[in-house]
């Protein structure tokens, strides 16, 4: 396991040249215009549309169910359009001021948290992508170790408490600021970037932080967008952190309320005492929709960056 800069050449002999001109989609299209290619395209499109529908149909059922009456949900096995259209389920969720407040809180915490987490991760990944950085191997070993072994709920709680982060929104962001998995992938990605660009920037007198900002990060948009999504979804779906770290219910995030509606029925043992009927299915469905739609809406904005190849974007400076 050599850590030194080794002389072994890279497996692909073609060194990537920094391509300044954008490769136009049209050239890509021309490449595949053979008969076999077109046949494959048709099969592929049909297959993927089927896969897409398979993923979508159950969601559409949930969507239809959220607009249906309780009676219809219990009597009809599967439907995509309710016979009787009602917004009662949404009304009962959205009428609560606590819910609306939690929604706004969650959006803000998710946005700010994602930025912080992504920044910290990229900042750490960049130095680690330099193979002869002193101490690199030790740090990476620790990172992998912490990925596999986490200390558990109570010890982490005690640390968050000692740092004075209880009842602050930092408690939802900082304990999960750098995901080891994301760090490793981003680090590997940086490692694969063509070195010439950084070298030439260095010759121009650029500082390491400037190189990261002006050379490396613009080249890494697809991967950064990916992990922005991962981090955002992580914060959005997190219910354990607010449960453990936020005692003040005015600070709660959306998941605290959503879990109550969706999880209580099947996860907790039957309470011997309550006469309350289980939460209505329609409300459950509405809750799933409310929790999912914002993330799905945010997705296309990030997707823009996925589509661009990293070498297509021009390098500033």
């Amino acid at each position, binding site marked *: 396991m050599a850590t030194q800069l080794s002389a072994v050449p890279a497996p692909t002999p073609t060194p990537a040249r920094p391509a300044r001109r954008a490769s136009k989609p049209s050239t890509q299209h021309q490449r595949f215009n053979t008969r076999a290619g077109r046949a494959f395209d048709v099969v592929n499109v049909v297959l993927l549309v089927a896969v897409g529908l398979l993923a979508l149909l159950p969601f559409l059922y949930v969507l239809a169910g959220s607009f249906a009456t309780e009676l219809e949900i219990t009597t009809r096995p599967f439907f995509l359009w309710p016979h009787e259209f009602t917004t009662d389920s949404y009304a009962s969720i959205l009428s609560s001021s606590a819910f609306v407040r939690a929604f706004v809180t969650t959006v803000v915490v998710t946005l700010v948290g994602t930025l912080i987490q992504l920044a910290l991760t990229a900042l750490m990944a960049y130095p680690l992508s330099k193979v002869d950085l002193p101490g690199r191997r030790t740090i990476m070993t620790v990172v992998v170790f912490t990925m596999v072994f986490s200390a558990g709920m109570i010890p982490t709680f005690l640390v968050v408490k000692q740092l004075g982060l209880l009842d602050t929104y930092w408690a939802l962001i900082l304990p999960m600021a750098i995901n080891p998995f994301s760090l490793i992938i981003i680090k590997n990605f940086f490692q694969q970037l063509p070195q010439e660009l950084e070298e030439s920037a260095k010759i121009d007198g650029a500082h390491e932080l400037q190189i990261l900002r002006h050379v490396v990060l613009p080249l890494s948009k697809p991967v950064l967008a990916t992990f922005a999504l991962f981090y955002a979804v992580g914060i959005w779906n997190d219910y354990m952190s607010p449960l453990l770290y936020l005692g003040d219910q*005015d600070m709660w995030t959306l998941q605290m309320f959503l879990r109550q509606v969706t999880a209580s029925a099947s996860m907790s043992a039957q309470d011997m005492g309550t006469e309350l009927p*289980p939460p209505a299915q329609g*409300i459950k469905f509405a809750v799933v929709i409310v929790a999912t739609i914002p993330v799905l809406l945010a997705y296309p904005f990030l997707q823009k960056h996925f589509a661009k190849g990293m070498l297509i974007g021009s390098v500033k400076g």
Partner: protein
Amino acid sequence: MRTRRLAPLALLAVGSLALAACSSGGSGDGGGGGGGEALDSLSIMAPYLSATPPEADDKVGTELSKIAGLDLDMQWVPNAEYGDRTNVVLAGDDIPDVMVIQQKSQGFVQTAEAGGFWDLTDYLASGDYPNLVTENPDVQQASSVNGKVFGVYRARDVVRTSITIRKDWLKNLGLDEPTNTDELMKVAKAFTEDDPDGNGKDDTYGMIIPAWGASIGTGSPYDAIETWFGAGNVWKDEGGKLVPSFTTPEWKQALDYEKELIQSGYVNKDYATMDGTTGWNEPFVNGKGGIIIDVQSRASQLAELFKEQDPKTYDQKVALVGNIAGPNGDFALPTPGYSGFLAIPKASVQTEDQLKQVLTALDKLSSKDAQILENNGIEGDNFTVDGDHAVFDKSKQDFTDVVSGSWAQIGTNVGGFEAYKPKPETEYDAELEKERADLQAKDLKKAVFNPGAALVSKTYMSNGVQLDQVIADARIQYISGQIDESGLDAAIAQWKSSGGDAVTAEMNELYGQLG
């Protein structure tokens, strides 16, 4: 991505982190009195079952604070995650003055035995707190840890088990309500084979049974049948010795009865997998099955669903039958009579004076006026009183739901339930309500209580969940035909060898000590 913004933000984050780390020294004093001085507020941690907890300025909370004489500082926790939160709270030093403890888990018992909670046995017996004197000493005993009462239990109906049957189906077939297990089998057979809905199709079955959590003695239909057969209730006292109910011959007899129900096709085919929380009512209301063994309130729930379908005929659909006789006698399966208790941690309530202050407040919170606030809400706001009943304002249903799903969770009612019951909407509802009350009185006399309820065995604390699962799974596997009698015996032998024998020995030792 505006990368230019990233770096300052990161620095900001790290900076504030360092600041937070420096400033963490002084904080940490909870709501309770750090020293010995009198409390000026009462912090209570409780689960809530409503969709949202009460707001901080909730009217009920304000009124209850007035009654208690202390400002209530409520810490609401979603019911599904209450256990996790409890353990974390016990590990920190910001512990509330009063905690709802939902079950005698290992974590709670260890803490209590290490001196983490006040032993209330003598305080409650002193009579200084009249509203905290139990009307049912057996239940208080059952809620204790080997005779030591660590909390004021939250009282629940003792008799809840009952059979709910399709009344119109019985009528169509000219059958009477069953009074014993043999007749119940005959009704199940007739509901399956004799076309009770008269539609000319073979599309009905007798009994609806959902999948049940992998434990025993949790009020499942199986548990009820086994008690009716005389297998006791979790434990059975045989000549002064406790034996597990599933080692009795009556238990096996009951299992053969359950097996006959299943193998003859008198039960829904998905009995092992049906989700009971959402799906139990549906086959009954839609005319697929006609018998449910569950709590009495199931009958009211079902009647309500029939009412939505057709308000004219709904009173012809549901019949309520109590516990029925078995071949070996007439027994009824009671509930534990409580659902957790309010315990007082020593970490926050440090002196006896403070303890008395807390008990006084809890006493007031169990008074009639407090009970009405906790269970009904604000009179003249979300409900009005009509005789002995509360009439709820439909337009304030959300508020009423929050009250019954949250504030009711801190009510103990150990001295008796004194709040108003909801006013029945129709004559039939009133009839059903009365029938429930009559059945409760009747079945209480033949209720078989768990003689080991108060006893906490050390081995059971660490292995109990798994041990219970062995038996609960073997039960279903046997009645489904997956294993035969020798397989069932093997499971019981496995139970014994993997800790069950130790549990039995420990239980009997404690049983002897408590007399």
